[in-house]
């Protein structure tokens, strides 16, 4: 097991592709994407009920063990979130190597 950071990002579904692109560019070792979440935050209720997906959120989970990568990820994600809203939580975890 190796210590790592677990980065969790909630963002709107229409922006998911852009986030995937960004994570790739920033060198994330991988990510998991859970679609079709709803939620509430500064910009009000997001109901996840439209055929359009415009009010739907999604959750990214990124595990990264290299501190440089973590730093680059956090700094790289910040501007996108500033423009579009959403949240990002970072916590400590152990990565089970198999």
């Amino acid at each position, binding site marked *: 097991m190796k210590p790592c950071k677990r980065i969790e990002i909630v963002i709107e579904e*229409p*922006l998911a592709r852009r986030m995937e692109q960004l994570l790739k560019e920033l060198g994330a070792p991988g990510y998991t994407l859970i679609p079709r979440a709803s939620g509430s935050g500064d910009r009000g*209720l997001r109901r996840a*009920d*439209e*055929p*359009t997906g415009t*009010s739907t959120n999604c959750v990214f989970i990124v595990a990264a063990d290299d501190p440089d990568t973590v730093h680059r990820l956090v700094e790289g994600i910040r501007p996108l979130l500033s*423009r*579009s809203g959403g949240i990002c939580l970072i916590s400590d975890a152990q990565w089970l190597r198999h």
Partner: protein
Amino acid sequence: MDSFFLTNLSSPPLLFFFLGAAAVFVRSDLEIPTQIAKFLSLYLLFAIGFKGGVALAESELDATVGLTIAASLLLACVVPVYVFFLLQRRMPVADAAAIAATYGSISAVTFVTCTSYLDAAGIPWGGHLVAAMALMESPAIIIGILLYRLYRNGTADTDGPIDWADLLKESCLNGSVFLIVGSLLIGWFTGPTGMAQISPFVADLFIGVLCLFLLDMGIVAARRLQDLRHAQQTTGLGPTTLIGASLALPLVNAALAGAIALLLGLPEGDALLLTILGASASYIAVPAAMRLALPEANPSTYLPMSLAVTFPFNLLIGIPAYHYVLRLLTAN
């Protein structure tokens, strides 16, 4: 005039829209799963595109067809510009641009409901109107984004130069535009032979599916209306102003589009469809594109305006009212 409203109000799709809205107001937990709603909307785009294409294949392409399409493109370019300049002083530039794009574009479901209104009334309409609809979806998106780029002042230019490839992709190639255009082309190409194969699917089921989809839209729209009433708008405009704008804009745009239709001397069905295209506002293609291109625009302004006010207004009152006025004016 009453008879127009009566025809409209006694059509099952409209009544199911009401039923959906009623479910929200009495706080029932009735809900259509989202993937189903997405599917129903894909079906409607697929069916209307295919039917329009087959109609095109069966009709002669004369000058009026070209003129109608040119007029609809003109409309799609003029509306976002005037709406933007009207709003731009009263709210952040990004929001003004997003609303402009929303009202410059069209709502395919409003169009589809109008075709079923015409069908029920036995009034013919041309397949090229479907092409016009498809072509009217995108220009407003591009214009909205360009206007935003030109008029935002002082904002740090984090965006760099305009990425035209991206812009075109996000405006012209979003899923719904692509599906309508594609189905239209396939319908055109395969013509009546193709129709014979899939008509039980695209034609016979159409109104039934529209009922279920409008049931869902009634739920979604009523929820947004409630949100709008409670929301503190970041645009600095109160809910009343926003609702007022969402009622005024379709009327002005309908007048504009109707005038063009009359000038061109379009037949009754086509004139009503062009009018409703002008009057309707997008709540699928444009909001999706705006989230990508203008993430700083607040979706809880432009989405409820178009979805919760303009959309039901056109459905319930707009279609028969525009029809009535068009009849009045052509009767002279």
